């Protein structure tokens, strides 16, 4: 697939350039900014800040699991509040916001050759509504009764009953309100990302020339726009059940000896709505990571991504299939057991396009020119953890194997490996990769390598052994693991080991934060294209790019995003906006 446009064959622009909104004051430049790059930094900073809260919460729950009975302040109520807020923050307010709001905002306009998102004002609103959602979420820590302790899945009826922390206090109301706000804010941003990719590309940037980062974020955004409404209605209905006493999800219930007024609702309906959102959500987090890691591997192995077209189709196939697998989260929910045949089959089919992506990543390394930079290290670590977590997904997706393992620590280990550790390793790799473009300076190499090794090895040591606790039958969401006949003494020691590793890995993140802040002023000057990369964001006239991104003239794209080590070319990379045919002598099969 040699795809180079001759310089005289580039089509003229279909529409003329529109004048950008130019900021008039410090406030409109740095705070109420309509520049996607500033919005990206705002999104990223907010997501990181709330992510730190989730990190501390994970330490608290590991204190309890690793050293049961030692810390009196961690009551069962508090423990359930910790796990609920940790899960919700990590999945929604950190990963979704950072990948789409952060990386999406920064990279989409730059990579497709646009001056900004197509609706900059709505884009700005998107961030402020997101911030409001985060503030509402945080406020629940200070509300009477504290935040909700219903588990991040918020399953009714318990989510809105007295036996659950925050169920009859403010916790659940604030949680649901915050999610509703988040979805409103995301929709504003998401429409922007989709329309910008479809309509805002520069001349010559065909869809099949888009870097895979853009494909990943674009597909994930389309999915999110289709999936979040299911969560939205579920939240609205539960809010009505809780606040007005309706019975969408509430059947007849006797709570502590008293008949409640609810009747006729279906708890399992909530689960279907939740997972109709919740499973695509996994890929909403994973697809941007897939895209970004493809570009990291290609750039740092100085080799085109192997099988680009297959990679694009795999992203689209995974995105589409992820809408017909949701009930694999519900094999033991009590739904009709015959659903199991259908959902196990669709779930295992997803393994095929996913495996293709893995093969193509490692085949990109094959006969490459591998530079073991920090982004490359994180990309390699991503493949290890993603393959590990993906393969345990084949256990849980295969309906009958899920029966003993469901609701155990095996599940916790699986999803942390595959949608916690793996995407976060990509986020780290991506930050080391693009930080020079955002700030003009490199992150410190020594601190970076320390951060990498502790995070990668530590996270593997946390989550790999945890699978075996689940195999033993240790349930998840147990605030106390006392008096468990199935747990041997050594299993408790293993839990202590996991906790200690969690504290070490958490500490390494403080080093990373220090590096982020310190390098803004003290990092080595990066120049415009330190990684000698081909994509458009590295070809901007200024670094960091100014408002409008590309100076006077928008770039014209002549080739795909992966012309690395082209035979006959002088350099080992040809940027997308460089004309001229350096086509290899042999046409690849």
């Amino acid at each position, binding site marked *: 697939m*040699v795809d180079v446009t001759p310089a005289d064959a580039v089509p003229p622009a279909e529409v003329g350039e529109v004048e950008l909104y130019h900021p008039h004051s410090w406030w409109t430049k740095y705070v109420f900014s309509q520049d996607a790059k500033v919005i990206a930094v705002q999104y990223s900073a907010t997501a990181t800040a709330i992510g730190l809260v989730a990190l501390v919460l994970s330490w608290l729950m590991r204190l309890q699991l690793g050293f049961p009975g030692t810390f009196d302040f961690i009551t*069962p*109520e508090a423990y*359930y509040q910790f796990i609920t807020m940790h899960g919700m923050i990590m999945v929604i307010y950190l990963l979704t916001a950072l990948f789409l709001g952060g990386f999406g905002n920064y990279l989409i306009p730059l990579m497709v050759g646009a001056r900004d998102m197509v609706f900059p004002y709505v884009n700005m609103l998107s961030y402020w509504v997101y911030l409001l959602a985060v503030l509402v979420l945080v406020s629940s820590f200070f509300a009477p009764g504290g935040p909700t302790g219903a588990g991040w899945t918020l399953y009714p*009826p*318990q989510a809105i*009953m007295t036996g659950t922390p925050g*169920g009859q206090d403010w916790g659940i109301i604030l949680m649901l309100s915050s999610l509703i706000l988040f979805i409103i804010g995301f929709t504003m941003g998401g429409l922007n990302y989709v329309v910008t990719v479809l309509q805002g590309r520069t001349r010559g940037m065909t869809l099949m020339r888009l870097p895979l980062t853009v494909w990943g974020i674009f597909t994930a955004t389309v999915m999110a726009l289709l999936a979040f409404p299911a969560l939205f209605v579920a939240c609205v209905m539960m809010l009505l059940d809780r606040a007005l006493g309706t019975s969408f999800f509430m059947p007849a219930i*006797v*709570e*502590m*000896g008293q008949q409640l007024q609810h009747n*006729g*609702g279906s*708890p*399992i309906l909530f689960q279907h709505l939740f997972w109709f959102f919740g499973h695509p959500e996994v890929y909403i987090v994973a697809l941007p990571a897939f895209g970004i890691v493809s570009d990291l591997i290609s750039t740092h*192995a*100085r*080799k085109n991504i*192997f099988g680009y077209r297959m990679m694009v189709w795999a992203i689209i196939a995974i995105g589409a299939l992820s809408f017909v697998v949701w009930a694999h989260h519900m094999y033991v*929910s*009590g739904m009709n*057991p015959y659903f199991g*045949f259908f959902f*196990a089959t669709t779930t295992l089919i997803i393994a*095929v396009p996913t495996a293709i992506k893995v093969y*193509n990543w*490692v*085949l990109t390394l094959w*006969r490459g020119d*591998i530079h073991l930079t920090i982004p490359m*290290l994180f990309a*390699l670590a991503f*493949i*290890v953890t993603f393959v590990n977590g993906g*393969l345990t997904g*084949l*256990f849980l997706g295969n*309906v*009958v*194997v899920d*029966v*003993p393992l469901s*609701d*155990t620590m095996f599940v916790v280990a699986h999803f942390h490996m595959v949608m916690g550790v793996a995407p976060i390793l990509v986020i780290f790799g991506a930050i080391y990769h693009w930080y020079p473009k955002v700030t003009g300076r490199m992150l410190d190499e020594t601190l970076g390598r320390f951060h990498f090794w502790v995070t990668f090895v530590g996270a593997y040591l946390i989550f790999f052994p945890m699978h075996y606790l689940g*195999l*033993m*039958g240790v*349930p998840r969401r147990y*605030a*106390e693991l006392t*008096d*468990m*006949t*199935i747990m*041997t003494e*050594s299993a408790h020691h293993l839990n202590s080991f996991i906790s200690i590793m969690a504290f070490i890995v958490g500490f390494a993140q403080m080093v990373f934060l220090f590096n982020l802040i310190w390098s803004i002023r003290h990092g080595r000057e990066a120049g415009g294209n330190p990684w000698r990369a081909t994509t458009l964001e590295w070809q901007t006239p200024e670094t960091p790019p100014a408002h409008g991104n590309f100076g006077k003239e928008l770039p014209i794209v002549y080739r795909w995003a992966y012309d*690395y*080590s082209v035979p006959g070319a002088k350099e*080992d990379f040809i940027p997308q906006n460089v004309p001229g045919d350096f086509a290899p002598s042999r046409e690849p099969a």
Partner: protein
Amino acid sequence: MAVVLVLVLIVVGSVLFHLLSPWWWTPIASNWDYIDNTIIISFWITGIVFAAVVLFMAYCVLRFRHREGIRAVYEPENKRLESWLMIVTAVGVTALLVPGLFVWSRFVTVPGDATEIEVVAQQWQWSFRLPGKDGKLGTSDTRDVTADNPLGVAPKDPNGQDDVLVEAADLHLPVGKPIKVLLRSIDVLHDFYIPEFRAKMDMIPGSVTYFWFTPTRTGTFQVLCAELCGQGHPLMHGVVVVDTEQDYLAWLGQQQTFAQLSAPQQSGSANQPPEKIIASNLGVAANSKLSRSAQ
């Protein structure tokens, strides 16, 4: 070359951990060794794929790391290789799915001679109901739950009068007989889970869910709740004792039927205030059964 070393160590370490570590499943006590076998197949297939991918990566990093003057090979795609890999993957996935679905069809097909028993969950304790001499469980409804009728057995249903009720105490089962477990909850979601039996299923207020199994050895097994059900969730333990036929019948003879239990209460025992019930529920979960099952 630390990366190559670590990648190899991860593969070797993971395999050794799998083979040598003391953490493994509990000895099985039901007919679901099919599930264990499917897990073993899964470990083999996924273990081979994991080792192959990571070792291949390690080799690539060793062999193709940056050297001055050497460029990467320009190879955008290779249709043949990609097709082959897709076929091999599809075969591997099929090898997992087919035995899995085969065992699942057994799991959802309840044998005709299975005895129906009922497990009723509430925050945070387990109760049980066994069919009486007529072999049938009476109907039940959450709306029928009162202090005198905590399981909500329909008071007028003749089938329910001889049902044996085991309230917040241990359940006994005979070894070697297939059991269909009907699962009910009167408040929130719970999940009836005994690790040694491998099977589990959620309990949903307003519905009756089920699974089946055959206990294959006698012994005392701990019941765990496997679906978050509020702050008492981790203490919601119970006990199932699998007996020989003889011991089982002896135990059964000591239990009381619904009719026996509801008769004296009709002559005017005061309803317990709800706070008392809460206290006793928590007390049962936290003290008596725990200490017994731990021994």
